[in-house]
Protein backbone atom coordinates (compact mmCIF):
# COMPACT_ATOMS: atom_id res chain seq x y z
CA UNK A 1 0.00 0.00 0.00
CA UNK A 2 1.39 3.38 -0.97
CA UNK A 3 1.52 5.94 1.77
CA UNK A 4 2.31 9.67 1.49
CA UNK A 5 3.23 11.70 4.54
CA UNK A 6 3.62 15.45 4.45
CA UNK A 7 5.12 17.78 7.05
CA UNK A 8 4.23 21.32 6.11
CA UNK A 9 5.69 24.45 7.59
CA UNK A 10 5.75 28.03 6.30
CA UNK A 11 9.25 27.88 4.87
CA UNK A 12 9.76 24.19 4.42
CA UNK A 13 7.89 21.03 3.70
CA UNK A 14 8.93 17.43 3.63
CA UNK A 15 6.95 14.95 1.58
CA UNK A 16 7.60 11.27 2.02
CA UNK A 17 6.32 8.62 -0.36
CA UNK A 18 6.58 5.04 0.78
CA UNK A 19 5.05 1.65 1.24
CA UNK A 20 3.74 -0.38 4.09
CA UNK A 21 5.13 -3.87 3.77
CA UNK A 22 3.87 -5.26 7.04
CA UNK A 23 0.29 -6.47 6.46
CA UNK A 24 -0.35 -7.44 10.11
CA UNK A 25 -3.27 -5.61 11.67
CA UNK A 26 -2.35 -2.40 13.48
CA UNK A 27 0.76 -1.83 11.42
CA UNK A 28 -0.68 -1.56 7.96
CA UNK A 29 -0.46 2.23 8.26
CA UNK A 30 3.18 2.20 9.23
CA UNK A 31 5.43 3.37 6.42
CA UNK A 32 8.37 1.03 6.61
CA UNK A 33 9.81 1.44 3.13
CA UNK A 34 10.71 4.85 1.76
CA UNK A 35 10.52 5.30 -1.96
CA UNK A 36 11.16 8.99 -2.33
CA UNK A 37 11.80 11.87 0.03
CA UNK A 38 11.21 15.39 -1.19
CA UNK A 39 12.31 18.45 0.67
CA UNK A 40 10.98 21.81 -0.43
CA UNK A 41 12.48 24.94 0.93
CA UNK A 42 10.92 28.31 0.26
CA UNK A 43 12.99 30.46 -2.06
CA UNK A 44 14.50 27.41 -3.69
CA UNK A 45 13.22 26.86 -7.22
CA UNK A 46 13.47 23.10 -7.19
CA UNK A 47 13.02 20.62 -4.42
CA UNK A 48 15.65 18.27 -3.06
CA UNK A 49 14.90 14.66 -3.91
CA UNK A 50 16.50 11.51 -2.62
CA UNK A 51 16.02 8.05 -1.29
CA UNK A 52 16.28 6.54 2.16
CA UNK A 53 19.99 7.28 2.58
CA UNK A 54 19.42 10.93 1.80
CA UNK A 55 16.52 11.21 4.19
CA UNK A 56 18.26 9.39 7.03
CA UNK A 57 21.34 11.58 6.65
CA UNK A 58 19.18 14.70 6.43
CA UNK A 59 17.19 14.09 9.61
CA UNK A 60 20.32 13.24 11.55
CA UNK A 61 22.19 16.31 10.38
CA UNK A 62 19.23 18.61 10.99
CA UNK A 63 18.49 17.17 14.41
CA UNK A 64 22.09 17.43 15.56
CA UNK A 65 22.54 20.90 14.17
CA UNK A 66 19.45 22.06 16.05
CA UNK A 67 21.25 21.13 19.26
CA UNK A 68 24.31 22.97 18.06
CA UNK A 69 22.25 26.14 17.63
CA UNK A 70 20.90 25.81 21.17
CA UNK A 71 24.14 25.02 22.95
CA UNK A 72 26.75 26.56 20.71
CA UNK A 73 28.84 23.37 20.65
CA UNK A 74 29.38 21.51 17.38
CA UNK A 75 27.62 18.14 17.34
CA UNK A 76 28.82 15.29 15.16
CA UNK A 77 26.34 15.09 12.28
CA UNK A 78 27.22 11.62 11.19
CA UNK A 79 27.91 8.30 12.85
CA UNK A 80 31.66 7.86 13.13
CA UNK A 81 33.14 6.07 10.15
CA UNK A 82 30.36 6.88 7.71
CA UNK A 83 30.72 9.38 4.88
CA UNK A 84 29.39 12.85 5.48
CA UNK A 85 26.54 12.99 2.95
CA UNK A 86 24.46 15.79 4.40
CA UNK A 87 25.69 18.38 6.82
CA UNK A 88 24.88 21.88 7.98
CA UNK A 89 27.47 24.56 8.69
CA UNK A 90 27.02 27.90 10.37
CA UNK A 91 27.33 30.78 7.93
CA UNK A 92 27.58 34.55 8.10
CA UNK A 93 25.09 36.57 10.09
CA UNK A 94 21.66 34.95 10.15
CA UNK A 95 22.56 32.21 7.66
CA UNK A 96 23.42 28.53 7.76
CA UNK A 97 24.51 26.26 4.94
CA UNK A 98 22.89 22.95 4.15
CA UNK A 99 25.41 20.98 2.10
CA UNK A 100 24.27 17.82 0.30
CA UNK A 101 26.57 15.53 -1.65
CA UNK A 102 25.29 15.05 -5.20
CA UNK A 103 25.43 11.26 -5.18
CA UNK A 104 22.53 10.85 -2.77
CA UNK A 105 20.18 13.63 -3.77
CA UNK A 106 19.46 15.85 -6.72
CA UNK A 107 17.85 19.15 -7.49
CA UNK A 108 15.97 17.86 -10.50
CA UNK A 109 18.13 18.19 -13.62
CA UNK A 110 20.40 20.89 -12.29
CA UNK A 111 23.03 18.53 -10.99
CA UNK A 112 26.54 19.33 -12.16
CA UNK A 113 28.48 16.99 -9.92
CA UNK A 114 29.24 19.54 -7.24
CA UNK A 115 27.89 19.49 -3.72
CA UNK A 116 24.60 21.28 -3.36
CA UNK A 117 24.90 24.23 -1.00
CA UNK A 118 21.64 25.68 0.21
CA UNK A 119 21.66 28.89 2.21
CA UNK A 120 19.14 28.75 5.03
CA UNK A 121 18.04 31.63 7.20
CA UNK A 122 17.42 31.03 10.87
CA UNK A 123 13.68 30.78 10.34
CA UNK A 124 14.07 28.39 7.39
CA UNK A 125 16.44 26.25 9.40
CA UNK A 126 13.99 26.17 12.27
CA UNK A 127 11.14 25.16 9.97
CA UNK A 128 13.27 22.35 8.59
CA UNK A 129 14.11 21.25 12.12
CA UNK A 130 10.48 21.43 13.10
CA UNK A 131 9.44 19.31 10.09
CA UNK A 132 12.02 16.73 11.11
CA UNK A 133 10.83 16.80 14.73
CA UNK A 134 7.25 16.30 13.63
CA UNK A 135 8.40 13.34 11.58
CA UNK A 136 10.21 11.91 14.62
CA UNK A 137 7.15 12.40 16.79
CA UNK A 138 4.94 10.51 14.45
CA UNK A 139 5.70 6.90 15.10
CA UNK A 140 3.86 5.68 12.01
CA UNK A 141 6.57 6.69 9.56
CA UNK A 142 9.93 4.98 9.36
CA UNK A 143 9.95 4.11 13.08
CA UNK A 144 13.54 2.94 12.92
CA UNK A 145 14.71 6.54 12.52
CA UNK A 146 14.87 8.07 15.97
CA UNK A 147 16.13 11.38 17.23
CA UNK A 148 19.34 10.90 19.12
CA UNK A 149 19.04 13.81 21.48
CA UNK A 150 21.85 13.28 23.94
CA UNK A 151 24.12 15.73 25.64
CA UNK A 152 27.50 16.09 24.07
CA UNK A 153 30.31 14.31 25.88
CA UNK A 154 33.19 16.23 27.37
CA UNK A 155 35.59 15.08 24.70
CA UNK A 156 33.58 16.80 21.98
CA UNK A 157 33.59 20.15 23.69
CA UNK A 158 36.58 22.29 23.19
CA UNK A 159 36.89 25.39 25.23
CA UNK A 160 35.73 28.63 23.68
CA UNK A 161 39.03 30.22 24.45
CA UNK A 162 42.06 29.37 22.37
CA UNK A 163 44.95 27.68 24.14
CA UNK A 164 47.01 30.85 24.13
CA UNK A 165 44.32 32.70 26.10
CA UNK A 166 43.94 29.89 28.56
CA UNK A 167 47.69 29.76 29.07
CA UNK A 168 47.94 33.44 29.97
CA UNK A 169 46.79 33.17 33.61
CA UNK A 170 49.10 30.23 34.26
CA UNK A 171 52.07 32.00 32.70
CA UNK A 172 51.31 35.15 34.67
CA UNK A 173 51.09 33.18 37.88
CA UNK A 174 54.35 31.34 37.38
CA UNK A 175 56.04 34.54 36.21
CA UNK A 176 54.83 36.35 39.27
CA UNK A 177 56.19 33.63 41.50
CA UNK A 178 59.59 33.79 39.79
CA UNK A 179 59.66 37.57 40.06
CA UNK A 180 58.76 37.40 43.74
CA UNK A 181 61.47 34.81 44.36
CA UNK A 182 64.07 36.99 42.67
CA UNK A 183 62.91 40.02 44.63
CA UNK A 184 63.20 38.14 47.92
CA UNK A 185 66.64 36.95 46.91
CA UNK A 186 67.77 40.54 46.54
CA UNK A 187 66.65 41.50 50.04
CA UNK A 188 69.42 41.55 52.63
CA UNK A 189 69.51 38.81 55.21
CA UNK A 190 67.79 40.10 58.34
CA UNK A 191 70.12 40.48 61.33
CA UNK A 192 69.24 38.30 64.23
CA UNK A 193 69.26 40.42 67.31
CA UNK A 194 69.06 38.65 70.59
CA UNK A 195 67.86 41.23 73.11
CA UNK A 196 69.34 39.38 76.06
CA UNK A 197 72.76 39.18 74.48
CA UNK A 198 72.60 42.81 73.55
CA UNK A 199 71.91 44.13 77.02
CA UNK A 200 74.69 42.07 78.45
CA UNK A 201 77.04 43.38 75.85
CA UNK A 202 76.15 46.94 76.59
CA UNK A 203 76.63 46.55 80.25
CA UNK A 204 79.89 44.71 79.99
CA UNK A 205 81.55 46.88 77.42
CA UNK A 206 80.28 50.36 77.60
CA UNK A 207 83.44 51.57 75.92
CA UNK A 208 82.64 49.83 72.70
CA UNK A 209 79.08 50.99 72.77
CA UNK A 210 80.14 54.55 73.29
CA UNK A 211 82.68 54.43 70.53
CA UNK A 212 80.05 53.13 68.17
CA UNK A 213 77.30 55.47 69.00
CA UNK A 214 79.46 58.55 69.34
CA UNK A 215 80.74 58.59 65.85
CA UNK A 216 81.14 62.33 65.95
CA UNK A 217 82.05 62.46 69.56
CA UNK A 218 85.18 64.52 69.29
CA UNK A 219 85.07 65.73 72.80
CA UNK A 220 87.98 64.68 74.87
CA UNK A 221 86.66 65.46 78.30
CA UNK A 222 89.93 66.14 80.02
CA UNK A 223 93.21 67.72 79.39
CA UNK A 224 94.91 64.38 79.42
CA UNK A 225 94.80 64.23 75.65
CA UNK A 226 97.15 66.85 74.36
CA UNK A 227 97.39 65.51 70.85
CA UNK A 228 93.75 66.20 70.17
CA UNK A 229 94.07 69.83 70.97
CA UNK A 230 96.48 70.07 68.09
CA UNK A 231 94.48 68.16 65.59
CA UNK A 232 91.37 70.00 64.64
CA UNK A 233 90.30 67.77 61.85
CA UNK A 234 90.81 64.17 62.84
CA UNK A 235 87.55 62.72 64.00
CA UNK A 236 89.04 59.29 63.80
CA UNK A 237 91.74 60.25 66.19
CA UNK A 238 89.22 61.26 68.74
CA UNK A 239 87.54 57.92 68.74
CA UNK A 240 90.30 55.93 70.34
CA UNK A 241 90.60 58.75 72.81
CA UNK A 242 87.02 58.61 73.85
CA UNK A 243 87.44 54.89 73.91
CA UNK A 244 90.33 55.16 76.21
CA UNK A 245 88.55 57.59 78.39
CA UNK A 246 85.88 56.00 80.39
CA UNK A 247 84.98 57.65 83.56
CA UNK A 248 83.32 55.90 86.34
CA UNK A 249 80.42 58.18 86.13
CA UNK A 250 79.74 57.23 82.51
CA UNK A 251 79.76 53.63 83.45
CA UNK A 252 77.37 54.22 86.27
CA UNK A 253 75.31 56.29 83.97
CA UNK A 254 74.86 53.55 81.42
CA UNK A 255 74.18 51.06 84.06
CA UNK A 256 71.59 53.28 85.51
CA UNK A 257 69.88 53.85 82.25
CA UNK A 258 69.87 50.19 81.38
CA UNK A 259 68.89 48.73 84.62
CA UNK A 260 65.38 49.57 85.55
CA UNK A 261 65.83 51.25 88.82
CA UNK A 262 63.04 52.87 90.62
CA UNK A 263 63.05 56.61 90.94
CA UNK A 264 64.22 56.56 94.48
CA UNK A 265 67.23 54.44 93.76
CA UNK A 266 68.02 56.48 90.76
CA UNK A 267 68.04 59.67 92.65
CA UNK A 268 70.31 58.10 95.23
CA UNK A 269 72.86 57.23 92.64
CA UNK A 270 72.44 60.61 91.09
CA UNK A 271 73.00 62.33 94.33
CA UNK A 272 76.30 60.52 94.83
CA UNK A 273 77.38 61.32 91.40
CA UNK A 274 76.41 64.91 91.56
CA UNK A 275 78.23 65.38 94.78
CA UNK A 276 81.32 64.01 93.10
CA UNK A 277 80.89 66.41 90.31
CA UNK A 278 80.21 69.32 92.54
CA UNK A 279 83.34 68.57 94.38
CA UNK A 280 85.25 68.39 91.13
CA UNK A 281 83.88 71.63 89.79
CA UNK A 282 85.75 73.55 92.45
CA UNK A 283 89.08 72.31 91.25
CA UNK A 284 88.59 72.89 87.56
CA UNK A 285 85.81 70.54 86.63
CA UNK A 286 86.45 68.58 83.46
CA UNK A 287 83.64 70.34 81.68
CA UNK A 288 84.95 73.79 82.15
CA UNK A 289 88.59 73.00 81.84
CA UNK A 290 88.04 71.57 78.49
CA UNK A 291 85.59 74.08 77.12
CA UNK A 292 87.87 75.28 74.32
CA UNK A 293 88.62 71.89 72.95
CA UNK A 294 84.98 71.02 73.34
CA UNK A 295 83.80 73.94 71.31
CA UNK A 296 86.16 73.04 68.53
CA UNK A 297 85.15 69.44 68.75
CA UNK A 298 81.49 70.32 68.54
CA UNK A 299 81.94 72.44 65.49
CA UNK A 300 83.94 69.73 63.91
CA UNK A 301 81.32 67.17 64.67
CA UNK A 302 78.52 69.22 63.21
CA UNK A 303 80.48 69.97 60.10
CA UNK A 304 81.74 66.46 59.57
CA UNK A 305 78.88 64.19 60.45
CA UNK A 306 75.90 66.45 60.62
CA UNK A 307 74.95 64.96 63.92
CA UNK A 308 74.75 66.67 67.20
CA UNK A 309 75.24 63.88 69.56
CA UNK A 310 77.42 64.73 72.46
CA UNK A 311 79.04 62.81 75.15
CA UNK A 312 79.46 65.31 77.84
CA UNK A 313 78.71 64.15 81.24
CA UNK A 314 75.29 64.73 82.69
CA UNK A 315 75.08 68.24 83.92
CA UNK A 316 73.37 68.98 87.15
CA UNK A 317 71.81 72.37 87.13
CA UNK A 318 70.82 73.62 90.50
CA UNK A 319 70.17 77.20 89.55
CA UNK A 320 66.84 76.62 87.81
CA UNK A 321 63.57 76.87 89.63
CA UNK A 322 61.46 73.76 89.97
CA UNK A 323 58.64 75.41 88.04
CA UNK A 324 61.03 76.23 85.16
CA UNK A 325 62.29 72.69 85.10
CA UNK A 326 58.78 71.45 84.87
CA UNK A 327 57.93 73.98 82.18
CA UNK A 328 60.94 72.96 80.10
CA UNK A 329 60.05 69.34 80.69
CA UNK A 330 56.57 69.84 79.29
CA UNK A 331 57.88 71.95 76.44
CA UNK A 332 60.37 69.30 75.39
CA UNK A 333 57.77 66.59 75.46
CA UNK A 334 55.43 68.73 73.42
CA UNK A 335 58.11 69.48 70.84
CA UNK A 336 59.01 65.83 70.38
CA UNK A 337 55.42 64.67 70.13
CA UNK A 338 54.57 67.36 67.61
CA UNK A 339 57.55 66.63 65.41
CA UNK A 340 57.47 62.88 65.19
CA UNK A 341 55.95 61.35 62.06
CA UNK A 342 54.09 58.67 63.94
CA UNK A 343 54.44 56.92 67.30
CA UNK A 344 57.41 54.60 67.39
CA UNK A 345 56.72 51.07 68.61
CA UNK A 346 59.19 48.43 69.62
CA UNK A 347 61.74 48.18 72.36
CA UNK A 348 61.96 51.20 74.60
CA UNK A 349 64.87 53.53 73.88
CA UNK A 350 66.07 56.39 75.99
CA UNK A 351 68.20 59.47 75.42
CA UNK A 352 69.78 62.16 77.44
CA UNK A 353 68.72 65.45 75.89
CA UNK A 354 70.34 68.74 76.77
CA UNK A 355 68.18 71.85 76.76
CA UNK A 356 69.11 75.47 76.99
CA UNK A 357 67.29 77.72 79.39
CA UNK A 358 65.17 79.00 76.52
CA UNK A 359 64.11 75.47 75.63
CA UNK A 360 66.35 74.90 72.59
CA UNK A 361 67.67 71.39 72.20
CA UNK A 362 71.42 71.61 72.28
CA UNK A 363 72.16 67.95 71.82
CA UNK A 364 71.29 64.44 72.78
CA UNK A 365 73.04 61.24 73.71
CA UNK A 366 71.66 57.73 73.24
CA UNK A 367 71.61 55.81 76.46
CA UNK A 368 72.65 52.55 74.85
CA UNK A 369 73.47 50.95 71.54
CA UNK A 370 69.88 50.19 70.62
CA UNK A 371 68.96 53.79 71.17
CA UNK A 372 71.93 54.84 69.06
CA UNK A 373 70.89 52.78 66.09
CA UNK A 374 67.26 53.78 66.38
CA UNK A 375 67.94 57.48 66.55
CA UNK A 376 66.63 58.06 63.03
CA UNK A 377 63.24 56.78 64.10
CA UNK A 378 62.96 59.66 66.52
CA UNK A 379 62.57 63.32 65.68
CA UNK A 380 65.59 64.22 67.81
CA UNK A 381 68.19 64.71 65.02
CA UNK A 382 65.98 67.28 63.32
CA UNK A 383 65.17 69.12 66.50
CA UNK A 384 68.71 69.91 67.53
CA UNK A 385 69.43 73.61 67.25
CA UNK A 386 73.10 73.57 66.40
CA UNK A 387 73.55 77.33 66.63
CA UNK A 388 71.95 77.75 69.99
CA UNK A 389 74.28 78.32 72.86
CA UNK A 390 73.49 78.80 76.43
CA UNK A 391 75.27 78.84 79.72
CA UNK A 392 72.32 77.65 81.66
CA UNK A 393 71.66 74.13 80.53
CA UNK A 394 69.51 71.32 81.77
CA UNK A 395 69.61 67.57 81.01
CA UNK A 396 66.48 65.53 80.54
CA UNK A 397 65.83 61.89 80.14
CA UNK A 398 63.62 61.15 77.11
CA UNK A 399 62.19 57.67 76.81
CA UNK A 400 60.35 56.38 73.76
CA UNK A 401 58.46 53.53 75.34
CA UNK A 402 57.59 50.29 73.64
CA UNK A 403 53.96 51.36 73.28
CA UNK A 404 54.82 54.54 71.43
CA UNK A 405 54.58 56.96 74.35
CA UNK A 406 57.13 59.71 74.85
CA UNK A 407 58.19 60.19 78.47
CA UNK A 408 60.32 63.09 79.60
CA UNK A 409 61.82 63.68 83.03
CA UNK A 410 64.82 65.51 84.44
CA UNK A 411 67.97 63.42 84.11
CA UNK A 412 68.55 63.24 87.82
CA UNK A 413 64.92 62.61 88.62
CA UNK A 414 62.18 64.83 89.94
CA UNK A 415 62.88 64.09 93.53
CA UNK A 416 66.23 65.81 93.43
CA UNK A 417 64.63 69.15 92.63
CA UNK A 418 61.71 68.87 94.93
Amino acid at each position, binding site marked *: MTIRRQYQLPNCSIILDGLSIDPSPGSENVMSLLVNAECRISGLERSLNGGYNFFAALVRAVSQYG*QEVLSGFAHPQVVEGEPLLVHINPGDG*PYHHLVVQPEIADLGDASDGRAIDIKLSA*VQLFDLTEAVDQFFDEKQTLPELEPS*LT*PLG*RRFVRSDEPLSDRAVPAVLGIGGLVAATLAFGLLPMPEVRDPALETRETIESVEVADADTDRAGATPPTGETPELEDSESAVEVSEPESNAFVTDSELTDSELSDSELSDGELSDGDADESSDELAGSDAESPNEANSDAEAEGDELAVAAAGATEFDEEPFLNSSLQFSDIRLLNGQLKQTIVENRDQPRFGDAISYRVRLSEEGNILGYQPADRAAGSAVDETPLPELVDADAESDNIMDYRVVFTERGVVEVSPWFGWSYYE
Partner: protein
Amino acid sequence: MQVQSPPNTQPSGPKLIDQLTVPGGLPSECSRRAKTQIDLLLLAIEALDLGGAEAMLASAKELGLDEVVRGRVNLWLLRSSNPLRRFSQRQPMSLEEGKALVLITCFLARRLTVLIRQLLLGYQQLSDQNLSFDHHFRLSDYLARFRSHFRARMNAKRSGVIAYSTDEKLNELAIELLTKLLFCTGTDGAERLWISLFDGEVS
Protein backbone atom coordinates in the same frame (compact mmCIF):
# COMPACT_ATOMS: atom_id res chain seq x y z
CA MET B 1 -24.30 3.56 45.71
CA GLN B 2 -21.99 2.40 48.42
CA VAL B 3 -18.48 3.59 48.36
CA GLN B 4 -15.98 0.94 49.35
CA SER B 5 -12.85 2.98 49.32
CA PRO B 6 -11.97 6.61 49.78
CA PRO B 7 -11.92 8.59 46.55
CA ASN B 8 -8.80 8.01 44.64
CA THR B 9 -6.71 11.15 44.91
CA GLN B 10 -4.78 10.24 41.88
CA PRO B 11 -2.35 12.83 40.52
CA SER B 12 -3.71 14.13 37.25
CA GLY B 13 -1.82 12.02 34.77
CA PRO B 14 1.95 12.03 34.30
CA LYS B 15 3.45 15.27 35.35
CA LEU B 16 4.69 17.60 32.68
CA ILE B 17 8.01 17.86 34.40
CA ASP B 18 8.67 14.15 34.01
CA GLN B 19 8.42 14.40 30.24
CA LEU B 20 11.90 15.78 30.17
CA THR B 21 14.29 12.87 30.23
CA VAL B 22 17.35 12.74 32.40
CA PRO B 23 20.02 11.01 30.36
CA GLY B 24 22.57 8.91 32.17
CA GLY B 25 25.81 10.41 33.35
CA LEU B 26 24.18 13.73 34.14
CA PRO B 27 25.49 15.74 37.09
CA SER B 28 23.10 16.01 40.03
CA GLU B 29 22.53 19.70 39.58
CA CYS B 30 22.50 22.26 36.81
CA SER B 31 25.87 23.50 35.67
CA ARG B 32 27.04 27.10 35.62
CA ARG B 33 26.41 27.26 31.91
CA ALA B 34 22.89 25.89 32.31
CA LYS B 35 22.05 28.45 34.99
CA THR B 36 23.44 31.24 32.83
CA GLN B 37 21.62 30.09 29.70
CA ILE B 38 18.24 29.77 31.38
CA ASP B 39 18.48 33.18 32.97
CA LEU B 40 19.56 34.83 29.72
CA LEU B 41 16.70 33.23 27.80
CA LEU B 42 14.26 34.48 30.42
CA LEU B 43 15.90 37.90 30.15
CA ALA B 44 15.28 37.85 26.39
CA ILE B 45 11.64 36.93 27.03
CA GLU B 46 11.34 39.89 29.36
CA ALA B 47 12.76 42.12 26.63
CA LEU B 48 10.19 40.75 24.16
CA ASP B 49 7.25 40.97 26.49
CA LEU B 50 6.87 43.82 28.95
CA GLY B 51 4.86 41.68 31.33
CA GLY B 52 7.32 38.82 31.01
CA ALA B 53 8.20 38.57 34.67
CA GLU B 54 4.56 38.29 35.69
CA ALA B 55 3.90 35.86 32.87
CA MET B 56 6.61 33.57 34.23
CA LEU B 57 4.83 33.30 37.57
CA ALA B 58 1.45 32.85 35.91
CA SER B 59 2.76 30.15 33.58
CA ALA B 60 4.38 28.32 36.48
CA LYS B 61 0.92 27.99 37.98
CA GLU B 62 -0.65 27.12 34.66
CA LEU B 63 1.87 24.36 34.03
CA GLY B 64 1.43 22.98 37.53
CA LEU B 65 4.99 23.86 38.43
CA ASP B 66 4.16 25.98 41.45
CA GLU B 67 5.52 23.31 43.75
CA VAL B 68 8.93 23.78 42.23
CA VAL B 69 8.81 27.49 41.50
CA ARG B 70 7.18 28.78 44.65
CA GLY B 71 6.33 32.38 43.96
CA ARG B 72 8.16 35.54 43.16
CA VAL B 73 11.03 35.31 45.61
CA ASN B 74 11.79 31.73 44.74
CA LEU B 75 11.82 32.58 41.04
CA TRP B 76 14.13 35.49 41.70
CA LEU B 77 16.46 33.28 43.73
CA LEU B 78 16.51 30.68 40.99
CA ARG B 79 17.32 33.24 38.34
CA SER B 80 19.94 34.80 40.59
CA SER B 81 21.87 31.57 40.59
CA ASN B 82 23.20 32.80 37.25
CA PRO B 83 26.86 33.49 38.10
CA LEU B 84 26.95 36.55 35.85
CA ARG B 85 24.33 38.30 37.93
CA ARG B 86 25.17 41.39 39.92
CA PHE B 87 23.65 39.82 43.03
CA SER B 88 24.46 36.24 42.20
CA GLN B 89 23.28 33.89 44.93
CA ARG B 90 25.85 31.13 44.47
CA GLN B 91 23.22 28.54 45.22
CA PRO B 92 22.79 25.29 43.37
CA MET B 93 19.90 24.73 40.97
CA SER B 94 18.46 21.25 41.19
CA LEU B 95 17.51 19.31 38.08
CA GLU B 96 13.84 19.70 38.99
CA GLU B 97 14.17 23.46 39.21
CA GLY B 98 16.09 23.53 35.94
CA LYS B 99 13.38 21.51 34.23
CA ALA B 100 10.67 23.81 35.54
CA LEU B 101 12.43 26.89 34.23
CA VAL B 102 13.03 25.21 30.86
CA LEU B 103 9.33 24.38 30.60
CA ILE B 104 8.36 27.93 31.51
CA THR B 105 10.81 29.33 28.96
CA CYS B 106 9.44 27.15 26.18
CA PHE B 107 5.84 27.84 27.16
CA LEU B 108 6.39 31.58 26.99
CA ALA B 109 8.47 31.33 23.81
CA ARG B 110 5.67 29.43 22.11
CA ARG B 111 3.25 32.21 22.98
CA LEU B 112 5.66 34.70 21.42
CA THR B 113 6.28 32.62 18.29
CA VAL B 114 4.84 35.15 15.86
CA LEU B 115 6.85 38.01 17.28
CA ILE B 116 10.06 35.98 17.39
CA ARG B 117 9.69 34.96 13.75
CA GLN B 118 8.93 38.53 12.72
CA LEU B 119 11.99 39.87 14.48
CA LEU B 120 14.28 37.22 13.03
CA LEU B 121 12.93 37.83 9.51
CA GLY B 122 13.42 41.54 10.03
CA TYR B 123 16.98 40.96 11.22
CA GLN B 124 17.66 38.82 8.18
CA GLN B 125 16.33 41.46 5.81
CA LEU B 126 18.25 44.27 7.47
CA SER B 127 21.52 42.38 7.40
CA ASP B 128 20.89 41.45 3.74
CA GLN B 129 20.71 45.13 2.90
CA ASN B 130 23.40 46.20 5.35
CA LEU B 131 21.00 48.46 7.18
CA SER B 132 21.15 49.33 10.84
CA PHE B 133 18.65 47.87 13.26
CA ASP B 134 17.02 51.27 13.70
CA HIS B 135 15.08 50.67 10.50
CA HIS B 136 13.02 48.00 12.20
CA PHE B 137 11.18 49.61 15.04
CA ARG B 138 10.15 46.46 16.84
CA LEU B 139 13.60 44.90 16.53
CA SER B 140 15.48 47.95 17.75
CA ASP B 141 13.00 48.18 20.60
CA TYR B 142 13.76 44.60 21.62
CA LEU B 143 17.50 45.11 21.34
CA ALA B 144 17.45 48.30 23.38
CA ARG B 145 15.37 46.69 26.07
CA PHE B 146 17.56 43.64 26.21
CA ARG B 147 20.70 45.77 26.51
CA SER B 148 19.27 47.79 29.36
CA HIS B 149 18.04 44.67 31.19
CA PHE B 150 21.42 43.01 30.75
CA ARG B 151 23.41 46.01 31.93
CA ALA B 152 21.14 46.61 34.89
CA ARG B 153 21.34 43.06 36.20
CA MET B 154 24.70 41.61 35.25
CA ASN B 155 27.89 42.19 37.16
CA ALA B 156 30.02 44.28 34.84
CA LYS B 157 33.19 43.10 36.59
CA ARG B 158 32.81 39.46 35.60
CA SER B 159 34.89 38.48 32.61
CA GLY B 160 31.86 36.74 31.12
CA VAL B 161 30.05 40.08 31.14
CA ILE B 162 33.01 42.22 30.07
CA ALA B 163 32.89 40.30 26.77
CA TYR B 164 29.56 42.05 26.13
CA SER B 165 30.68 45.56 26.93
CA THR B 166 29.69 47.11 23.58
CA ASP B 167 26.24 47.61 22.07
CA GLU B 168 27.21 45.49 19.07
CA LYS B 169 28.21 42.53 21.21
CA LEU B 170 25.00 42.77 23.22
CA ASN B 171 22.95 42.96 20.03
CA GLU B 172 24.64 39.82 18.78
CA LEU B 173 23.82 38.09 22.04
CA ALA B 174 20.21 39.25 21.87
CA ILE B 175 19.82 37.89 18.32
CA GLU B 176 21.49 34.63 19.31
CA LEU B 177 19.04 34.25 22.20
CA LEU B 178 16.15 35.08 19.88
CA THR B 179 17.21 32.23 17.58
CA LYS B 180 17.43 29.89 20.54
CA LEU B 181 13.96 30.95 21.65
CA LEU B 182 12.69 30.16 18.17
CA PHE B 183 14.04 26.64 18.50
CA CYS B 184 12.32 26.42 21.89
CA THR B 185 8.95 26.99 20.23
CA GLY B 186 9.15 23.70 18.32
CA THR B 187 7.47 20.38 18.96
CA ASP B 188 10.45 19.06 20.85
CA GLY B 189 11.62 22.49 21.96
CA ALA B 190 11.67 21.80 25.69
CA GLU B 191 13.49 18.50 25.30
CA ARG B 192 15.99 20.05 22.92
CA LEU B 193 16.69 23.00 25.21
CA TRP B 194 16.92 20.76 28.27
CA ILE B 195 19.38 18.37 26.64
CA SER B 196 21.43 21.20 25.17
CA LEU B 197 22.05 22.60 28.65
CA PHE B 198 24.20 19.58 29.44
CA ASP B 199 26.36 19.61 26.35
CA GLY B 200 29.90 18.96 27.44
CA GLU B 201 28.84 18.04 30.98
CA VAL B 202 28.58 14.28 30.61
CA SER B 203 31.56 12.04 30.45
